[in-house]
């Protein structure tokens, strides 16, 4: 037979029989294992994933055994190799059945399930074993013996990937192994034990990832056997790796440069997949070197994406650049990040790129059935089906084509079609998926029960696309897991509305559901329960149905809520609008980007369609020229790149969108926070403003108080300057100014007194003293034009106060001498009491005198009062009787016995109300109409002497013998307020507006400001006689009728005195005077502006 050249490097797949001759680098290891197997009939091979355990057995130990290099009884070898998978006993039975037993499969399985020597016994009974002590052998002739020897065979049982006893839930759960697994392991160990004891040519080899060594304790007897015969597959050393790289080429008659070997050695990193990646790279390099015709060198390594072109020798660089010009652009991109691992990644990506065209070329009849998009979906779904995450690590997952096409769930995509689409990945030279396509035509055919498997897990870890797909699949499963929790909560709560998804999770799960499109077959893939398939199917179907209803119901509930929310939201939105404008701008940006991405997607789709159309045309024209084909491929690549870019952009846009939404929410939150902070700041600002104002006010107040204090000082200094009236006036005036300007009380006694004293010093006639009365002035009243006064002699004088003289007088002449006289407040009426105990009421309109005589009293009358409307007059005296007469008719209206000598009587608010002060120390209120008496004060020590009514406050003010002034609030049942600190008897009292004046027994007059009890009263003491009557005139001047027959008039207003004083001042203070009296620190000002 002619030698047909093959690649000495198998790539990702294991060495097949032909290729085992190229298995190098493990010679010493193989010797050691063979030695163990020969001597102990058993060996457990452990080691890291990808360290070549299976290859050691299949390409190392087995060929040795078959070659007669493993010492055994017979020359023929039978190999029963199996993987535990999910049915270890079934798989072991299957492996042995073909050559050990004539029973049917189930019977044989049952036989083996009894464990212990079941396998050995079966072997002994089979033609493989020659019982040399048996009758058959002993009686046989030589030809028969030869025939028996020919049939005889040694048996090797290989349990490859023993870790599947632990990785499948059917075999191992919660730390304990299943009965079936225990049975299989028992069979294996007992077989090895008996074989050793009886020198049977039966051998047991197990291979297992070292990660699972601890779990072996769950099998009885296994740890002991591992201890008895174990081989830990070492990682290859440099020298071994050199053999792995160079020897196959040498054996095959190929050439490999030393520098390439060294490059590869240096590029190998410690860790998983060292050998498969190296084997794959060598396979690709061999192909790049024109299937081994050229010496494998650095340039070939660069051509498969392993070496950066800048690291090539100069001559190779030029060749490489030339070569690059001839390859499609998508392939150029695969060389962007060269590395040993990238060789596998680049190869896989190249296949993915070419796969659809390969399919169309091989199966043109299906070109219209399957689009490129369909194709990508199928490939992606297939690879996702063939991977699963085991303890956070992506591992292989075998599935049938039918299971895969069920998960794809497109009516036109059958299992058979899926098989055809994946052919390229099974081809020799690629071999990413098992079963591989070999020279045998039947290997091309697949059917729905064909089991697909990824050749080596290193593909999952090193092909970036597959890694992403596997991650996505894992992510989808995790999402489903989360979603199912919500779903099951809803179901277990009788599908109540309260358990539906809120808007956030709903949108999230809807998006996921629409993109993942889970179906029952997909769910079944993850159902590892031991329930029958039909039950799994029904369970998955129910979940999918419920999931759909759950999402639909949640969406409907949200819509209803949304409608309700719309109106309230509008209001809220308007309020928040100003705060969220920028956030919306961001969102708009995201939306724009999304639109751009969608446009790009559309463009890409269009471009793809265009490329497909171009390609179809190119195909129709039988690929007229290579150049045009390259252009088409180039266009297609660009389109796909654009599409990928668009997809990336779209994803980015979606991310942006969600980011913008998050930012919007954040912005809203921030704006709320900002608003609250602003409000807080506003409050703080207001508080601080307030505080500032307060401080300023306090400062101002302090300054004002300081200046007021200065003014008090000036007022005092003024009094001392009586020898210098101008200066005295200036100081008084300045004191007044400071007080007034700084909110002080200009009515302050010190200021008032300073002003009045200064004015007295400057003015020749400062205080009016009206002289001319013929008797002491007992009563005073003011009408619109003049001041009326009357004395005991019955003469009424009418004074022009400003002129200081009496302008007219009338005599109220009656037959009996006056006992008292009282002029009505309007000055038009007068009442006089006479010693004949009569009371006369005089009318003095226009100088015309008329009177009404009222008689009938037994004792002298001492006091009288006109009603506010001047229609009645009340009088009382020693006889305690209070009598009220009609002024016009003189008729008695009422008589009330006050039971004590009435000293003062006065009308209060109206003609019906009177206040009466009696000698026994009482103040009573009289209701005229009812004749009732209400006592509001009574004291034997502090006797009321005089009183006046304050209409504005409905208050009765009384002066007392002990100097007290008491204010009785008649609206509050006579509630009493005490005024001042007077200690001398109060004899007269008068009120006007806000001022209350009293004359005292010490012959002084005090003027109080009502409502300002803190302010000391103005004290007038520059007269020497007792005051008999006291009133305020319309200009608020206080007028006192005195015992010495004079009437004295005082201005009570500091303002008025100041005004007059200012007019008398001829200069302002000099600077020296200012500094001396006012102070340097206070800025100079003119005291009087003129």
């Amino acid at each position, binding site marked *: 037979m002619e*030698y047909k*050249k093959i690649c000495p490097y198998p790539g990702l797949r294991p060495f097949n029989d*032909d290729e085992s001759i190229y298995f190098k680098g493990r010679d010493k290891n193989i010797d050691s294992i063979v030695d163990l197997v020969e001597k102990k009939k058993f060996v457990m091979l452990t080691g890291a994933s990808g360290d070549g355990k299976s290859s050691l057995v299949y390409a190392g130990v087995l060929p040795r055994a078959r070659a*007669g290099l493993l010492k055994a*009884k017979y*020359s023929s070898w039978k190999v029963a190799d199996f993987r535990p998978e999910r049915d270890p006993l079934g798989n072991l039975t299957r492996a042995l059945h073909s050559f050990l037993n004539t029973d049917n499969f189930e019977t044989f399985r049952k036989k083996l399930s009894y464990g212990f020597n079941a396998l050995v016994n079966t072997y002994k009974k089979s033609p493989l074993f020659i019982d040399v002590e048996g009758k058959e052998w002993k009686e046989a002739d030589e030809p028969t013996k030869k025939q028996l020897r020919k049939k005889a065979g040694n048996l090797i049982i290989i349990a490859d990937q023993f870790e599947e006893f632990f990785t499948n839930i059917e075999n191992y759960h919660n730390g304990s192994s299943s009965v079936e697994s225990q049975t299989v392991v028992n069979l294996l160990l007992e077989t090895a034990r008996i074989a050793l004891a009886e020198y049977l040519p039966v051998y047991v080899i197990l291979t297992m990832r070292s990660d699972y060594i601890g779990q072996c304790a769950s099998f009885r007897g296994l740890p002991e056997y591992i201890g008895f015969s174990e081989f830990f597959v070492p990682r290859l050393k440099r020298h071994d790796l050199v053999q792995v790289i160079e020897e196959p080429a040498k*054996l095959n008659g190929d050439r490999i440069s030393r*520098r390439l070997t*060294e490059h590869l050695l240096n590029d190998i990193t410690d860790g998983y997949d060292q050998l498969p990646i190296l084997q794959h790279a060598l396979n690709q390099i061999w192909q790049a070197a024109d299937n081994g015709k050229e010496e494998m060198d650095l340039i070939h390594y660069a051509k498969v994406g392993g070496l950066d072109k800048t*690291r090539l020798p100069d001559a190779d660089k030029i060749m490489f650049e030339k070569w690059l010009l001839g390859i499609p652009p998508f392939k150029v991109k695969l060389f962007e990040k060269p590395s040993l691992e990238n060789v596998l990644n680049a190869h896989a990506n190249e296949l993915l790129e070419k796969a659809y065209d390969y399919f169309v070329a091989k199966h043109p009849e299906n070109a219209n059935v399957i689009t490129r998009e369909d194709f990508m979906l199928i490939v992606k779904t297939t690879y996702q089906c063939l991977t699963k995450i085991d303890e956070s690590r992506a591992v292989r997952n075998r599935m049938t084509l039918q299971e895969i096409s069920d998960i794809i769930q497109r009516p036109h995509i059958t299992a058979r079609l899926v098989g055809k689409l994946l052919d390229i990945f099974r081809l020799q030279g690629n071999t990413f998926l098992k079963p591989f396509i070999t020279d045998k035509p039947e290997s091309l055919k697949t059917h729905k029960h064909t089991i697909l498997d990824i050749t080596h897990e290193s593909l999952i870890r090193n092909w970036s696309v597959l890694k992403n797909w596997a991650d996505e699949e894992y992510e989808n499963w995790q999402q489903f897991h989360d979603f199912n929790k919500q779903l099951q909560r809803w179901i277990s709560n009788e599908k109540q509305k309260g358990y539906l998804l809120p808007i956030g999770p709903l949108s999230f799960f809807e998006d996921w559901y629409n993109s993942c499109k889970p179906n029952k077959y997909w769910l079944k893939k993850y159902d590892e329960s031991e329930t029958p398939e039909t039950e799994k199917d029904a369970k998955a179907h129910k979940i999918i149905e419920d999931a759909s209803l759950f999402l639909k119901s949640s969406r409907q509930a949200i819509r209803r809520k949304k409608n309700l929310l719309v109106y309230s939201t509008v209001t809220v939105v308007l309020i928040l609008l100003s705060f969220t404008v920028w956030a919306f701008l961001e969102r708009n940006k995201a939306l724009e980007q999304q639109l751009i991405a969608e446009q790009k997607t559309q463009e890409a789709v269009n471009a793809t369609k265009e490329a497909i159309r171009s390609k179809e045309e190119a195909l129709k024209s039988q690929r007229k020229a290579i150049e045009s084909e390259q252009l088409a491929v180039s266009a297609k690549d660009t389109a796909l790149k654009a599409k990928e870019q668009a997809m990336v952009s779209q994803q980015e846009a979606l991310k942006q969108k969600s980011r913008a939404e998050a930012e919007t929410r954040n912005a809203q939150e921030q704006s709320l926070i900002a608003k609250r902070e602003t409000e807080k700041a506003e409050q703080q600002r207001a508080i601080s403003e307030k505080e500032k104002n307060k401080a300023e006010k306090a400062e101002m107040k302090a300054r004002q108080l300081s200046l007021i204090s200065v003014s008090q000082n000036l007022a005092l200094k003024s009094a001392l300057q009586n020898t210098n009236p101008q200066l005295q006036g200036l100081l008084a005036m300045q004191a007044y100014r400071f007080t007034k300007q700084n909110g002080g009380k200009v009515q302050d006694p010190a200021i008032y007194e300073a002003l009045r004293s200064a004015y007295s010093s400057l003015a020749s006639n400062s205080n009016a003293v009206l002289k001319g009365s013929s008797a002491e002035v007992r009563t005073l009243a003011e009408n619109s034009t003049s001041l009326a006064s009357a004395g005991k002699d019955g003469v009424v004088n009418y004074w022009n106060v400003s002129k200081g003289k009496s302008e007219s007088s009338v005599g109220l002449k009656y037959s009996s001498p006056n006992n008292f006289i009282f002029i009505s407040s309007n000055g038009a009426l007068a009442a006089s009491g006479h010693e004949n105990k009569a009371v006369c009421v005089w009318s003095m309109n226009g100088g015309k005198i008329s009177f009404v005589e009222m008689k009938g009293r037994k004792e002298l009358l001492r006091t009288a009062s006109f009603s506010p409307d001047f229609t009645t007059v009340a009088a009382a005296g020693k006889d305690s009787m209070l009598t009220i007469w009609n002024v016009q008719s003189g008729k008695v209206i009422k008589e009330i016995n006050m039971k004590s000598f009435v000293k003062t009587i006065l009308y209060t608010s109206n003609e019906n109300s009177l206040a009466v002060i009696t000698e026994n120390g009482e103040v009573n209120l009289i209701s005229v109409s009812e004749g009732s008496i209400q006592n509001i004060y009574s004291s034997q020590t502090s006797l009321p002497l005089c009183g006046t009514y304050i209409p504005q406050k409905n208050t009765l003010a009384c002066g007392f013998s002990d100097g007290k002034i008491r204010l009785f609030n008649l609206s509050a049942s006579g509630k009493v307020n005490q005024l001042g600190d007077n200690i001398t008897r109060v004899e007269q009292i008068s009120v006007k507006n806000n001022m209350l004046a009293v004359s005292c027994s010490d012959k002084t007059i005090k003027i109080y400001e009502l409502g300002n009890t803190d302010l000391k009263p103005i004290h007038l003491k520059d007269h020497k006689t007792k005051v008999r009557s006291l009133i305020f005139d319309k200009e608020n001047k206080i007028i006192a009728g005195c015992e010495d027959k004079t009437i004295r008039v005082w201005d009570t207003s500091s303002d008025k005195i100041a005004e007059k004083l200012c007019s008398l001042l001829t200069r302002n203070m000099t600077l020296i005077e200012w500094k001396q009296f006012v102070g340097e620190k206070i800025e100079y000002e003119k005291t009087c502006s003129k």
Partner: protein
Amino acid sequence: MHANIFIAWTPNDCRSLREDLTQVLKNSGMEIANEGEFPADEAGFKLAVEKGIQKADCFILPIGGKLGESLPTENNVSMSHYQFLKIKQHLAESNFRLFVWQTPLAAPHLLEPKQLEFIDHLKHSITSNMAFTNVPSPLKLADDIRSVMEIPEITLAEVAGTDIFLICNEMDDAEATEVMDMVSDIVPIKKLTVVHDDGLNYDDLSAQQINSSKLAVIYFRESADWALPFVQQVWKKIGGAASKTPLLLIGSSDPNSNAGKYVNAPKIISMIVNADLIPLEIKVQYDKAVESAVKKR
């Protein structure tokens, strides 16, 4: 046998690493040919390198980030480069090894541009017996050197040269003897019968004998299951395509089950022929082998 190691001169940046390496190599059981400092003068340096090469059977050239000083009398070639050029002349010697060690000090960010050029030059100049390694520690380097320098012990059998070396399984021994008898009349032939249970190291034995023969013949009739794997194992032992002795895997066409029993590998001629024609076919293939060998000479 302990390897004798010469550690090349290095610029100062590698000084400390060089000292560490010396100690590690000593601890691993290797001998150091040049301890201490290199002579400061150019002539002394050249002499030390020459002596080292003469004395050592392994040369280590540590490479750091800096190229280091150059030699004015050698066209300003760097001292490291000079050493490499000198060693290269000896690389053809079968027992001489060169290890260029790109130390961690030659990490990309520490590399001088000229040193990078030198490294690329070294990488492109790798030939047999030369290794370029980037292991991170002296420990790993020492371990690699030790494994490479280790010479495997081979038990040499008593082999007498012959023209044709015939190998068969005990099951086919009788038929093989007949074949041998027929061939031995015209060509010197030796036969080896493989007995499974006797414990002989058949692959080594066969390989040594094959290498001393002009044609190796593996014959089978009933033992096809043995013959194919056996020829593969032996083929590997003798160097596959590089072997000077071709292998003839020849089986009898009786029984029919032998049909299709071939091995596909270079330098292996596989054929199933009528039992009567087997001696003849062996002769034909022998002649071809001889002719081919003559041509190659």
